């Protein structure tokens, strides 16, 4: 009896460990392939810092002769934009939608249909591996430029702000990836998806607070934006860590809405995948 129980436990443990091993390998492959493009990422970070300098010039000129805009100082606003750039390299989807679309269009997706691997989980694992590499790469210039940028880094945050920011960043990454995943799946229906992707990127850029902090919008529009998924793609975690969300209740409500959007995108992605597969035709050997 004891022996049988022992065997069962080993079997269950093995079955549980199996996915971790499987996706662990995928993660390792993802790290390697992201490292191949390390110089592309370094160049990209360089241009992001140039963009940050342009943002600094524009907002510096806007702040001339005034202490606050929308209740925040120049230092706080620049802190927001600096954190936004770091967040982009830690949690943003870069070209995952394009890669997924290409796999569908080129037929290489067929290999995943015959293997015991979940395509969403596979792609998500690659995404996390790639963001680990880009996240480390973006931190290098930030650390090197600490004498220049140190003033803008978050300071004096309450423990609850840090505690809320960690899950908020994680959930934001899943929302970003899931949106990219859904757009990639459009390749089941359309030959060319880049137009949809870039159109959506314009909306996402605006409503996720990449162009200006969303709290500078008129109050009603800002309130509406809080119920949209874009708010939780980047603005929410960055606003938490740069001190723009000052109430724990607001952070708590934000995390609830963010989790709901994650579930909604997971379900929608699954639905698109199933519908897409029904249309998909695999040809060749």
């Amino acid at each position: 009896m004891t022996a049988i129980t022992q065997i069962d436990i080993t079997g269950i443990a093995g079955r549980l460990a199996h996915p971790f091993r499987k996706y662990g390998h995928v993660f390792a492959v993802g790290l390697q392939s992201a490292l191949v493009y390390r110089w592309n990422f370094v160049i990209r970070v360089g241009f992001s810092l140039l963009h940050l300098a342009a943002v600094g010039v524009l907002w510096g000129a806007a702040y001339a002769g005034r202490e606050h805009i929308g209740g925040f100082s120049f230092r706080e606003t620049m802190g927001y934009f600096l954190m936004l750039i770091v967040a982009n390299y830690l949690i943003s989807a870069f070209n995952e939608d394009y890669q997924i679309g290409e796999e569908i269009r080129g037929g290489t997706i067929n290999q995943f249909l015959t293997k015991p691997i979940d395509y969403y989980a596979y792609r998500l694992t690659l995404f996390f591996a790639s963001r680990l590499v880009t996240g480390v790469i973006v931190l290098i210039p930030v650390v090197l430029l600490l004498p220049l940028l140190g003033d803008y880094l978050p300071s004096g945050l309450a423990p609850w702000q840090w505690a809320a920011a960690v899950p908020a960043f994680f959930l934001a990454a899943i929302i970003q990836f899931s949106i990219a995943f859904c757009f990639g799946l459009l390749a089941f229906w359309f030959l060319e998806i880049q137009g949809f992707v870039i159109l959506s990127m314009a909306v996402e850029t605006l409503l996720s607070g990449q162009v200006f902090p969303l709290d500078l919008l008129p109050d009603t529009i800002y309130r509406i934006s809080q119920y949209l998924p874009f708010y939780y793609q980047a603005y929410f975690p960055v606003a938490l860590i740069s001190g723009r969300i000052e109430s724990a209740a607001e952070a708590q409500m934000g995390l609830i809405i963010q989790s709901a959007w994650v579930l909604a995108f997971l379900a929608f992605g699954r639905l698109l995948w199933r519908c897409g597969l029904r249309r998909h035709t695999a040809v060749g050997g």
Partner: protein
Amino acid sequence: MSLLAYLRIWLASIRYSVVRTMMFRFDFILWVLVDGAWMGVNLLLIEVMFRHVDAIAGWGKAEMILLVGTAMLVMRLFMTFFLTNLFSVDRLVREGMLDFYLAQPGNPLFMLSTRRIDLDGFVNTVVAVGIVAYAVHQLGIRPGWAQIGLYGLMVLAGLIIHYATVVAIVSLAFWITRIQGIEGGYWAIFDLSRLPRPALRGVMEFVFVYLFPAVIVSNFPAETILHGPHLGHLLWLLGAALGWFAFAVGLFHLGLRRYSSASS
């Protein structure tokens, strides 16, 4: 080849592009909307900032719309005629497809640059002109024909600067083959053309006003409409355009010597 022959080739490419675009009408409309949405994002930034401030580096809201509209106009002209053609150079070099252009009886850079035009960029060029006209109307000024002519000339000089910048960037493909990340530099650099010149100080002013003309491509034409013609600005912009054009063409031909077909 005579100048007329080049013009004929370009017109034939334009005709081909128009026919091709009309075959993919949904795609055309989608890309007009895509770029239109990005233009809207830039205008919304001004709208939101001016809800909180009265001026940015001495420029009022309508003046900023004029500046951003001018920056958009130059960029959309570049997108219409050259962007797609030039951004494919690194792929052509990598795959050895450049042979096709080198074998043609004309200047290879011309052949590469004028292969097709993007009609969606042309539609948004018209939108950008509309934005400039709206800003001028808001400012309540009536620029004379000389001012408008000079504005047009400066926009053309700006177009040459955009062209030269991207030719220089893509020429790097002859040395480093894969330039994917570097292409993004075009957007990052000309992001600066939406900034009013007095806002830049120190190193930023030295680099992006005096050394590389990213800021003046939009500021000088806009200032011509706002304050009238300025001979110094005109000469500065034309000189910068010619200088950067010569540098970019030189760099392209230097790189071309390294090109060794499919094995490149």
